[in-house]
């Protein structure tokens, strides 16, 4: 699903440089990413999502060589193949929970909102236990409820890859477990791959594999 080779990356005006000789994630795998702050975990997710471009080397995701895609294709790739979950939930405050789950179809390139999509969103909301909160705005939801809605939004496009950046970082321990279980359950239903950055070492046993950026940074 993800194949990284000889990757080097540096922000244009920053001293930070990321260097990944090789990294691969199989389809359906659930991979945790840990490491000290500032080691480039979020940067890796951005690279894999095509939000930033590698300087050298290759990033291949779901069969697409991202550096070979043009800007519009990368956006379309992101809209249709990748689901994002954020630490701060990043819901849109002026839309109801239900409309938030449909948000990718409002802005994403190459996505069309059809009645089937609405049905799917409704089914996802039921599976995620937020069906009764769909008419509420994010401001009226608890953190756990907001993240459940965010998971619905990430999954509604049926992505092949789910990128989670500290998705449980703002939640209490019990909710963390529930949210991660939920994410894994829905992802494996769809056969989606999960790449999740976390600071939570208690959750690591649940992943198939863990990449530790503390080691990655060491010169090969």
């Amino acid at each position: 699903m993800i194949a990284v080779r000889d990757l080097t990356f540096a922000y244009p005006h920053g001293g930070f440089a990321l260097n990944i000789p090789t990294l691969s994630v199989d389809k359906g795998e659930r991979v945790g990413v840990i490491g000290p702050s500032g080691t480039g975990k979020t940067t890796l997710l951005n690279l894999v999502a095509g939000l930033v471009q590698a300087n050298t080397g290759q990033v291949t995701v779901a069969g697409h060589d991202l550096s070979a895609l043009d800007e519009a294709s990368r956006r379309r790739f992101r809209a249709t193949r990748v689901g994002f979950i954020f630490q701060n939930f990043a819901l849109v405050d002026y839309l109801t929970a239900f409309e938030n789950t449909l948000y990718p179809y409002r802005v994403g390139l190459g996505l069309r909102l059809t009645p089937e999509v609405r049905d799917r969103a409704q089914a996802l909301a039921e599976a995620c236990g937020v069906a009764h909160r769909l008419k509420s705005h994010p401001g009226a939801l608890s953190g756990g409820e907001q993240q459940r809605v965010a998971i619905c939004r990430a999954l509604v496009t049926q992505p092949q890859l789910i990128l989670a950046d500290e998705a449980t970082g703002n939640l209490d321990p019990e909710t963390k477990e529930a949210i991660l279980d939920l994410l894994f359950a829905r992802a494996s239903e769809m056969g989606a791959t999960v790449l999740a950055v976390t600071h939570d070492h208690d959750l690591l046993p649940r992943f198939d594999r863990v990449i530790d950026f503390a080691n990655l940074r060491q010169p090969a």
Partner: protein
Amino acid sequence: MNALFLALAHLRWTWARSLVLIIVGALILSVPMVTQVLLRGSEQALTQRAEATPLVLGARGSQLDLVMGAVYFSEDRTLPITRAAEDDVWDSGLALPIPLHTAFQTNGARIVGTSLDYFDFRGLTIAEGRQVALLGEAVLGAQVADRLGLGPGDTVVSAPENLFDLDGVYPLELQITGVLAATGTPDDEAVFTDVKTSWVIAGIGHGHEDVVTADAEGNITANAAITQFQRITPDNIDSFHFHGSASDYPLSAVLVVPYDTRSGTILRGRYLDPENPVQMTVPAEIVAGLVDRIFRIATLLDTVTLVIGIAALGAIALSLFLAWSLRASEIETAKRLGAGRFVIVQLAVAEIALLLTLSAGLAAALVIAVTRNGDQLVAWILAL
């Protein structure tokens, strides 16, 4: 379509801000048009009525005040003249004089004491009830009747002319006998009565001994200390009488309707002497000068409106810009979810287009409402 959906959702979520923007936008769009409509309407109404009023006789002084008071029943006042001036016109045999006494008000409407000739001269007809016949009776202009919700059988009380009136002259209760048909002129905003009734209000005519006075609740009482107004009844009407010489009774002005053009010219000539305390004015000339001045001021007003409009647009732009910086995180999310490069532009354009459409709709409604009620609004403005 999706951009429109999001824009609409955002406008609804921030509805108070949206409402303010829409109202401000509508005002910017409609104020110049509304002023144009009202200006043109006022010009027309002013000019038409002035041209329909051949001559006005009144105290020497401001010709404009004289015309405004006598033709449009405005607040402007000149000194009163006497009834002798009216008699002079009669005696000349050159024109029909119509007396006007416009010193009093009731419920914000001017009480116009005049003769029955006035109704013929202006072409006023009774829409409901009957014409005044007795002392103390009045007919209402259409707008006054509408505004006060009064009709034949009701009463209005004249406003006390001044709070410290120690002459023992009480406001008079007027019996409404009829309502005039609407004409879209200042006549709709006036209450008409016989000039003698005006003199009763002025305390020149009054009843004796058995004059019935009543307090605000209508309780009839004989104790002058607590009486609020006087009422003319079938029992006391015969006791009403006037003191002094009839030729000394006051009038605000006299409308003069010459029998032909030549008579008008001759009559005007008799009032040219600047020593004469009475002057004869031609309303059409005075109003032409006024309209000319109004339009010169209006051009200045247009410039002011333009400047204020630009300033308001700047404020709107700033408010939109600030709103957009509040949405930076949404834009960032949209980018991560694979939004197109121009998603911000699309959302901004959709939102501005929606605001503009709603503003334009509201502005159009305003302009249409003003245009539809233009006559009444103009009549009301002219009566101010």
